[in-house]
């Protein structure tokens, strides 16, 4: 088993390398330079000044030279400095990561708690009114543009009803509290945590609502498949109660594919939706990535792509492992085969 794990991990390295080469090439293919956003069409900035800046950022070097410089530093875990404000890229990522992860975990939790029961119940009574009604609702969430939903909820709950704040992470009363403080010393900042909770209700709701469809439909179809199996019929024939059949035999098998989905959603944990982050003024990873691309902030883009790829491959791998562990058939077959 260990040799399998090691072999799999090692095989990920060349893939990662190729991903970075491709990403580097693609982002440089896009027309424009990092010095553009601020300095193009600014009458106070001369051509000479722009050329000097191009040199200072190392952008006049040949492409492969720039890539190798980058790789050289990344191997030592130095992701360089952002072109936008010269801050270390790692710092920019770490200050945004907690919020994004928190929103995603909360949203994922909400989705799991709602979508799985929904899917299971729909599978138990396929084509019933319940099934059809829930299908309509989840597809509504899926097809709705998230910014529209966000603005609607904001207008209704924050502006008209004044139940929740309009945007941001913290009220001005907590303007002096940094997010990292909250995480490191949660108990001294209970009031601030309550404030954060109120601010996150709408963003988490929006993020969750649009993802309900996927998981609930997947659960439903997987359960329907499982419930058609012979062993289920056997269990029923043995006289077991429907609840016993469902929970002991049906769910265990039906929910296995969910593991795969969860594994593949690992990179989503660190990815933010730039749309809902923009609407709710949440300083998250989505905005970081989008703004970096628009400004051609290569170090930040490359760092995010690399980290995202690592997470994707790791998630994939963990999903495989978890599946192998959970499903005795796969585990046993692997042990017996050479």
């Amino acid at each position, binding site marked *: 088993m260990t040799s399998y794990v090691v072999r799999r991990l090692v095989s990920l390295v060349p893939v990662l390398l190729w991903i970075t080469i491709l990403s580097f090439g693609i982002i440089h293919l896009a027309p424009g330079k990092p010095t553009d*956003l601020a300095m193009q069409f600014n009458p106070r*900035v001369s051509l000479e000044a722009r050329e000097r*800046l191009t040199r*200072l950022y190392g952008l006049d070097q040949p492409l492969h030279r720039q890539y190798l410089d980058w790789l050289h530093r990344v191997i030592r875990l130095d992701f360089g400095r952002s072109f936008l404000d010269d801050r270390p890229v790692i710092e920019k990522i770490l200050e945004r990561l907690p919020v994004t992860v928190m929103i995603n975990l909360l949203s994922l939790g909400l989705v799991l708690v709602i979508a799985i029961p929904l899917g299971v119940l729909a599978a138990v009574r396929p084509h019933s009114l319940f099934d059809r009604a829930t299908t309509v609702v989840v597809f509504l969430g899926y097809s709705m543009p998230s910014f529209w939903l966000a*603005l609607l909820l904001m207008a209704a709950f924050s502006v008209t009803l004044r139940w929740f704040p309009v945007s941001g992470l913290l009220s001005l009363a907590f303007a002096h509290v940094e997010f990292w403080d909250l995480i490191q010393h949660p108990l001294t900042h209970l009031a601030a945590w309550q404030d954060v909770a109120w601010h996150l209700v709408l963003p988490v709701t929006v993020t969750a609502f649009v993802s309900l469809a996927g998981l609930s439909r997947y659960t439903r179809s997987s359960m329907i498949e499982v419930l058609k199996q012979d062993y289920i019929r056997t269990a029923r024939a043995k006289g077991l109660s429907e609840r016993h059949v469902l929970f002991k035999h049906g769910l265990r098998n039906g929910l296995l594919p969910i593991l795969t989905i969860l594994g593949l959603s690992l990179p989503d944990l660190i990815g933010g939706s730039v749309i809902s982050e923009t609407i709710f003024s949440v300083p998250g990873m989505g905005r970081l990535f989008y703004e970096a691309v628009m400004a051609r902030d290569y170090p930040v883009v490359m760092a995010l792509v690399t980290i995202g790829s690592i997470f994707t491959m790791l998630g994939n791998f963990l999903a495989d492992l978890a599946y192998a562990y959970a499903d005795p058939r796969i585990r046993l077959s692997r042990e017996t085969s050479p």
Partner: protein
Amino acid sequence: MGVLIVSLTALRMEARAQTPSSTETRPTPGDALVVGSIGDASRLLPILTTDSASGDIVSLVFNGLVKYDERLAVVGDLAESWHVASDGLTITFVLRRGVRWHDGQPFGAEDVRFTYEKLIDPNVKTPYSSSYELIESVDVLDEATVRVRYREPFAPALESWMMGIMPKHLLGQEDLNTTRYLRQPIGTGPYRFVRWKTGELINLEVNPDYFEHRPYLDRYLYRIIPDQATLFLELITGGVDLSGLSPLQYERQTKTAYFERHYQRFRYPSFGFTYIGYNLNDVRFHDQRVRQAINLAIDKRAILDGILFSLGSVATGPYPKESWAYDPSVVPQPRDLDQARALLAQAGWEDHDGDGWLDRDGAPFRFTLMTNQGNEVRRQVAELIQQQLKEVGIDVRIKVIEWSTFVHEFIDTRRFDAVLLGWSLSRDPDLYDLFHSSKTREGEYNFVGYRNPEVDQLLWAGRRTFLQHERQAIYRRVHRLLYEDQPYTFLFVPDALPVVHRRFRNVRPTPIGIMDNLIEWYVPAPEQRYHRMAR
């Protein structure tokens, strides 16, 4: 329970805001101004700021040697007075005494020289070096006197000394590109930096020792709200006190009784203009008659009224009416389709084949008007122009392109027919970089390729004299010549539309904006909203 507390507090604040204000004669200190911004700042050192958010913060934390007052005259800021020698080559600044940096250290002439040295330092990532490269030397005559010597007379120099002065005692040993002072600035300005929560908020507190006088407002809170719609919702729920409105919001969404009661809207001309720039090397636009014809065929009034709800004025040149360089005798010609067609016919463009489009040598008059993505107003203007030019038989195609791509692939390479863009200019009327025939290299701003020897001479002369009346005559003539030559079709100058919560007193619109007298703004005690905020 939390919800109950929140709503009760909101109600209490509401009640306060509605207290009718008695006539206030004595300003009271206290309260905070919460400003909403679409973008976050990036660098908070004056010589490195390029985005407007950083610029907003820097303008409150730092001072330049001089500044503009509300009548657009140059007045002293850190400099008490200055003297320009008769040959125009030397400016001597006498600095104010007793000014202190936010850390308590005294400000002096050494800081001015230090700022200059960093501006021309090739290793510092400042884009503003060009205005200072004409300087031969900056000499410290004593701790309150600085003499700047130029290689040639350079009138825009005075404006260049509005650049924020940086503290030598703190930054002298630092690498300005990466120093921590980029994120924790120390200046001489009316507000001191407290905290920057990246992507969320920049917190400034009052500088009680500010050299003019202690500003009345205790705090300035800069909230980053990247979405226009959210910013508006924050405004109407009281989350933000000051914001800019779009013409649509100004005209259609802020005329409710609630808004009138709680907010004050302002309107003043911005210092910039929107235009159509023609590629003058294109054989079709090379002919002045064609450009003049298009100018006559476009109804700028209709554009202004229809798309900007009349919140602006028609432009005839690069200067707004408030500028001393504006020539009031240059009057916009009314729309005249017959005259336009006549001019085009003279240039050889007529509808020979009867298909409704003008043509010459068998080819129809069709061109692509390009503009940048992300500007809804501009896109609508392009569509209206397309419709208006159709009436004279010109077929306009519209192309909207992402900014960086636009600049690199089309403007720098001169692969465009015509562009619809805007310039946001400084108050000094020097337009050398835009219209001088030498500024046509790739990446320079005379990308239309304009060449007029008389304008060249005027622009050159306008920079070299400090005498206001001489410069005024020069630039007024430039205004007239540009209108006659039409390298651009000048469309309009949009109005700036800021809105401020009514509890703030002493807010008034001027040609330079509403924030120039921020240190005079105050909120009467019963109406104050934010009390004793923690650092």
